[in-house]
């Protein structure tokens, strides 16, 4: 089995990439919270126009954040392939 021993410390570029990759994990969590909690908590406030605007803004933010992060991540370099 090709289990590489994990490297303990990384250079600046690889370090930044790791943190960016972690940020991409945060986006779905935040987005899910924005989408799930307000409508479930206060359905009467989020069932009409306000809800539509809220969801549209939240989604637009999530898309923008994902696009920015994916752009910043760029193509994976060969040495930074071991994620997790």
């Amino acid at each position, binding site marked *: *089995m090709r289990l590489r021993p994990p490297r303990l410390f990384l250079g600046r570029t690889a370090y930044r990439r790791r943190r960016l*990759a972690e940020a991409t*994990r945060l986006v*779905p969590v935040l987005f899910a919270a924005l989408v799930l909690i307000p*409508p479930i908590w206060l359905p009467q406030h989020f069932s009409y126009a306000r809800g539509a605007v809220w969801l549209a803004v939240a989604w637009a933010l999530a898309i923008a954040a*994902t696009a920015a992060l994916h752009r910043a991540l760029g193509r994976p370099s060969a040495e930074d392939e071991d994620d997790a």
Partner: protein
Amino acid sequence: MTPESLVAASVAYVALMFLLAHAADRAAAAGRWRWMDRPVIYTLSLSVYCSAWTFYGAVGYASRSGLEFLTIYLGPGIVFSGAWWGLRRLVRVARMHRVTSIADLISSRFGKSAGLAALVTLIGVMAATPYIALQLQSVSMALSAFATPEHALPRNVSVWVALGLAAFAILFGTRNLAVDERHHGVVIAIAVEAVVKLAAFVAVGVFVIWGIADGPADVLARIDRMSVSAGGEGWPINPERWFTLILLSGAAVMVLPRMFHVLVVEASDEDRLRQAGWAFPAYLALMSFLVLPIAVVGADILPKGANPDLYVLDLPLSQGREALATLVFLGGFSSAMSMVVVSAIALSTMMANHWLVPLWLRLRQAALAGPARAPEDLGTLMLNARRLAILAIIGAGWLYHRMSGGTSALAAMGTVAFSGMAQVLPALVAGLLWRGATRRGAIAGVVGGTLIWTLLVFLPSLGLLAQPAMPAGIDPFAGAVLLALAVNLLLLVLISLMDFPEPAERLQSLSFVHAVAPDAAPGDGAPAVQPEALLTLAGRLWGNDHALETFRRAAESQGKGGYLPDLTPRFLADFERLLAGTVGAATAAALMTRVGGRGGVTVSDLMEVAGEASRAREDNRRLENTSAELARTAAMLRESNEKLTALSAQKDAFLGQISHELRTPMTSIRAFSEFLMEPDLPTEERARFAGIIHDEAGRMTRLLDDLLDLSVLEAGKARLKPGVFNLHDLIERALASAGAAASGRDFAIRRNIAAEHLPVITDQDRLLQVLINVITNARKYCSAEAPQIRIDCRRSPDGGTEIDIADNGPGISAGNQALIFEKFARLNDPARAGGAGLGLAICKEIMEFLGGSIAYLPGQGGACFRISLPPRPARRAENDENAAR
């Protein structure tokens, strides 16, 4: 537009897509497919998620239930915003294992289980049935919207739609047996259709927002008015449905067979998710937020009896926009067509790989490895199986459409499909994240969840069972789905926790969870199979040319010519994975077992894997040790080389010295003997000259004695005469004779007399020789103002005796310490030494002969020698002595 002209337009549109797909396939076959392999094509092909349900059903859904329709798009939006972590991993693992479908992935993860693959296929087919029915219903509904009393709709229009779509799917999905299960032509057609449906939907959306309503603000105001209008009863958000539907749609975007196909199987690498991760949600957001204005404006201006599912067509028609309505119809048709075609391809692959071929293999026990008899073409068999499967799937969809009466709301049919397929989600997620998830757990979970879904959701949707009775206040659909998923997950976890998986399964779980490439399975040491048999099998599946090319490349990579590679475990594993890319992992494993007689993996094989890894580590450590040892040896060699060089120089110097030493007395002997030859020499002169000659001859004899002594000791020919003596007496005698021999300087002798009274068993004369030599050296070389000699004696812990003899002179420099015991070594100026420089070399030889040692002790404030005696002389010496007696 009449329905007939619309049908004609649809046929023309299908023909156009056909040509496009055909051209793309040809370009791909010619190797010019790079331009088709772009992330944008991939992203557009993902829009197969937006089927006729989105196109027609979402508007109906929105006008009935308000914002709830958004859940169907928010779920995928959430999943894709985490694409970098989740989907990328899914795609990478699936590509690593050349997975052909969601059923193949699950089966491959859980030990290439054929049963699990068949089960997931069953769920896929069951769940797809209402979904395909939805598409057929939407197309016939859309056609009916154009119908007028004078242009009645032909009966059974849905049959014709179904047949047409089946034909398209068969033509494209089963043209040849792709090695990697990718369909470039179909993907291009879907991408173009994605553009068509987006354009149509944007056109109608813009028309509604700015043509009928007064811009976005007006639309928002209309939305708010729904809270008080008659049609708005369903609008308030139902929290449990909100949560459940987001969960379901998030699952659906991964586990629906068609989504899995475009998302995973058609992906040539995982990097394209970088773009798709935001572009596909953007596509979804655009589509879904255009739904709201169409729904609210349609509810406001269309007659109360109108079918909300058709607002998207009815609105342009009511405003007399025939061209726009035609575009919308084509957009809707596009979305239905792409969904049905991709679903049919994905599901037919699953059915053929996981149902029909295993069944055929079971029925035909004939040896597959035999020479290829012409009619037995496995490839054709697979293709025919898929064609049959496509017909069956679309036929089942049509049947569902008929049974459900063709009147249900589209969205209701879609959610049935979603909730069915979602039963695969726990197995998928657990399989990718948890190594402990086992086959039995997955089967139990999927079976349990699917049974509950069938009883509480699927059959009631067909009208075969009553709607389930849920406790008051709980939505029946959300309750049933959450119950099914909870039971599913619980069974999966509990049974996995109690289970002990088979070794093959544990290998796969390691590979899936850690995303490491599957290595050659252990235990494949000596396969009984011939390479020809495998080539035959491959030829039957892929055609001879492709099979030969694959084998030639494998042979080449092994450094062999020809077409028959060695059947290394690596090649066999790769070959099985290539087969899996065509027929699925379970079937590939079965084929390999059948053809090659490859046995299963055993627990001890698994331990062997761990053993190999640790052996590799062990080897590594040994290598490191060896190289460290080599480095040490090299250092030692260098050291001895330096010593040798120094000694060689010393020896040269010594030869000069000894010649000089021998020549000086020789010269005086010759000179004085010449004087003696003078006849008239006075007697006293004659006596003096004779005395000088005698002394000089004595000096020469001593020198020669020393040399002789040394050579005797070195050759081991000396005789040992052991006895018991008091060390004190020996030291007394040594001091006396050294004092007698030495210069007249006064030395302070510091001794511990009491400690000297130690009995020693040794050769008295030899030890005395050493003591005298060391003490004489001290006397000779100690240049201190008030010279003193210190003698310490003690018993060593091992019963031996240690005698330290130290002076307070300058000592011996570190560089010379290594040389002093060598022969011919003389450190100070020769004039003062007065000897031949053999003293310490002789001492060393003697001490070794006595079984002890003599060593220089550095850092004692002067030259210090430690003479160590063993408790008794070495046995070898005694034996020699006995033999001598």
